[in-house]
């Protein structure tokens, strides 16, 4: 079992947002999650990553051998859960280099590997940045401070490439990207695809999916998955929107 979400209910401040999510992800699969604003996509991503503001009141998440809900966010990250944020956070005064070096070595320590020294780290980081067409000076700048929207998203994908997670959750990584940036990000994601690594890609648009080619597409509405299908479902949504699905769902 890679990832199995069963009957997941979650609330924030007395408001129930997730109302029974079931989702099973096998190794190497790419799942797209689509759905109107406010349907709970970011909430699902945050609950998977271990954000504490959300209270899980029912359901279960198994990830590999772990009961994911029993683990702290940093533990989950060390075990290979990665979230590319809808809004990456700025950390003034902390360089990207220090940040990623600390993060990478925390993960290596959890895996019983020796720490990477600054030289090896930098070499690795520069290689990954080159693929994402990021300038080396980005390593010296404070995490996301003064970055454009596109640069922030690219920085998140860079972090993903560095940490080589097992489960990559991407929350609207494509929003706010121009066509070139979208291509670069998509290439970065495709370079990471493998039989062992799975993706959950939250998006509103088909254009990212055209590059990434998901195996499954799910529509999230009002805290539930109301329809699942293949790549063709994304094309259908692009043409017809969500309304007909929602109407059909609400009649039932």
């Amino acid at each position: 079992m890679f990832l199995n979400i069963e009957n997941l209910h979650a609330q924030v401040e007395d408001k129930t947002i997730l109302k029974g999510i079931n989702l099973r992800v096998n190794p190497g699969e790419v799942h797209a999650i689509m759905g109107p604003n406010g349907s709970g996509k970011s909430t699902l991503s945050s609950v998977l990553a271990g954000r504490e503001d959300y209270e899980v009141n029912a359901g279960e998440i198994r990830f590999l051998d772990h009961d994911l809900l029993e683990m702290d966010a940093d533990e989950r990250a060390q075990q290979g859960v990665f979230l590319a944020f809808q809004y990456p956070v700025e950390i003034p005064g902390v360089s990207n280099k220090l940040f990623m070096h600390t993060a990478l070595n925390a993960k290596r320590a959890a895996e019983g590997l020796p720490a990477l020294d600054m030289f090896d780290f930098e070499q690795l980081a520069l290689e990954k940045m080159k693929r994402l067409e990021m300038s080396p000076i980005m390593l010296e700048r404070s995490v996301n401070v003064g970055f454009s929207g596109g640069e922030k998203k690219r920085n998140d994908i860079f972090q993903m490439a560095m940490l080589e997670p097992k489960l990559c959750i991407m929350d609207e990584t494509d929003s706010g990207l121009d066509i070139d940036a979208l291509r670069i990000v998509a290439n970065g994601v495709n370079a990471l695809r493998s039989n062992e690594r799975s993706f959950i890609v939250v998006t509103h648009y088909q254009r990212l999916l055209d590059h990434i080619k998901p195996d499954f597409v799910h529509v999230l509405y009002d805290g539930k998955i109301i329809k699942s299908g293949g790549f063709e479902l994304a094309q259908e949504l692009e043409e017809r929107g969500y309304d007909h699905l929602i109407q059909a769902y609400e009649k039932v």
Partner: protein
Amino acid sequence: MQTTQYEEINDILAKNQHYKEGFHTQTLVETFAKGLNEDVVKAISAKKNEPQWMLDFRLKAFRHWQTMPEPHWAKAEYEPIDYQDYSYYSAPECGSCATDGQAESGSAVDPEVAKAFAALGVPIDDSDANIAVDAIFDSVSVSTTKRDQLEKLGIIFCSFSEAVQDHPELVQRYLGSVVPYHDNFFAALNSAVASDGTFVFIPEGVRCPIDLSTYFRINEAKTGQFERTILIAEKGSYISYIEGCSAPIRDTYQLHAAVVEVIVHEDAEVKYSTVQNWYPGDEDCQGGILNFVTKRGVCEGRNAKLSWTQAETGSAITWKYPSCILKGDNSIGEFYSVALTNRRQQADTGTKMIHIGKNTRSTIISKGLSAGKSDNTYRGLVKILPGAEGARNFTQCDSMLIGNQCGAHTFPYIEVQNPTAQVEHEATTSRIGEDQLFYCQQRGISEQDAISMIVNGFCKEVFKELPLEFAQEAEELLAISLEGSVG
């Protein structure tokens, strides 16, 4: 039931198991009975075999102090102090530590006291340390290292008590010249009961090749420490001077009222660094050091330069404004400060830059960090006098809040009396947010590491001004002060 997002951070910060300097040394001590009156002042002076002029200075200050009200204007609030409930003199009893025949090497130091300094990592045994140390234990200096080496360069580095005996002309000339005995309540108290302190004199044209330092240790309960430090840099000289300090964990307040006077002559430069780690008290506001300090320097001559750098992590209450009087034309004053408050600590700190000479320049970089239920205040004055043609000041005051029950306050006072002056002020306040911590944790970084990484990033600009080992120490102190749960 409303859980606040900061509860856990506050929880982590509330604990204080990590004040590793909190041990207590047991040795034979001579401690005066509690209480303060003219006889106590005379007894302190007699204990130190002081000349009449020194006793006169003390008595004048004491009589003036009695007429002054205890100040309560700072943002830091404290109960009126019962000055009769403190002892004003305490010293290890071993004969060799007495001030008249001070030991030249650490070997004659009370072994328990030597152990305490060893545990604190203070090199009082004169080993290969790349630094000279004056070690002060309660009211007396117990060891001053590397004196012979320094003497060859004409540098005087000794305890204040010794300076009174051996260099009376210098002490008489400079004592009270920058901070007069009547300057403020705590300066007056210090002038009356000054216990010991450090005296430094760098002769003309000498660059002191090593850092000089003083380590202050308060050990006895209910004892005040009132050190007096005088530092004189003659024309064209250079000195980097460092202070460190700590105290045992006690459940009652301990009083620390120091006065520091720095005199910088033409073309000389003084870097004065402080890493202040006095016991801060516990989460219920029990105990801790009341740290009321007057530090002031004067740039007497042209091109004189004085830099104050401080990392303040300790004390229950800190009340401290290291200041520069920029008299000499083209003289420079700098103030770099990191002040961290946690639990119920209160810090009211800042600087005064008084521009008198032409083209004088000052820079103020202040980083205030508040956590727990603490309050952190920056209070600064930039004053440009009419004669200070072309004077310039740059001030940057940044505050960071960690959690949601703490406070940060900024009171910048600016008085410009010369139209050619340029004064710039920038201020920011930010909060370490749940978002930032989650971002770090999502990348595998623990919450503790995330907090200290963010905090150190915030303080970087100031720490780079500290001598290297002390910058490291300051970083560690910050991490420890914010910690308290792990390890």
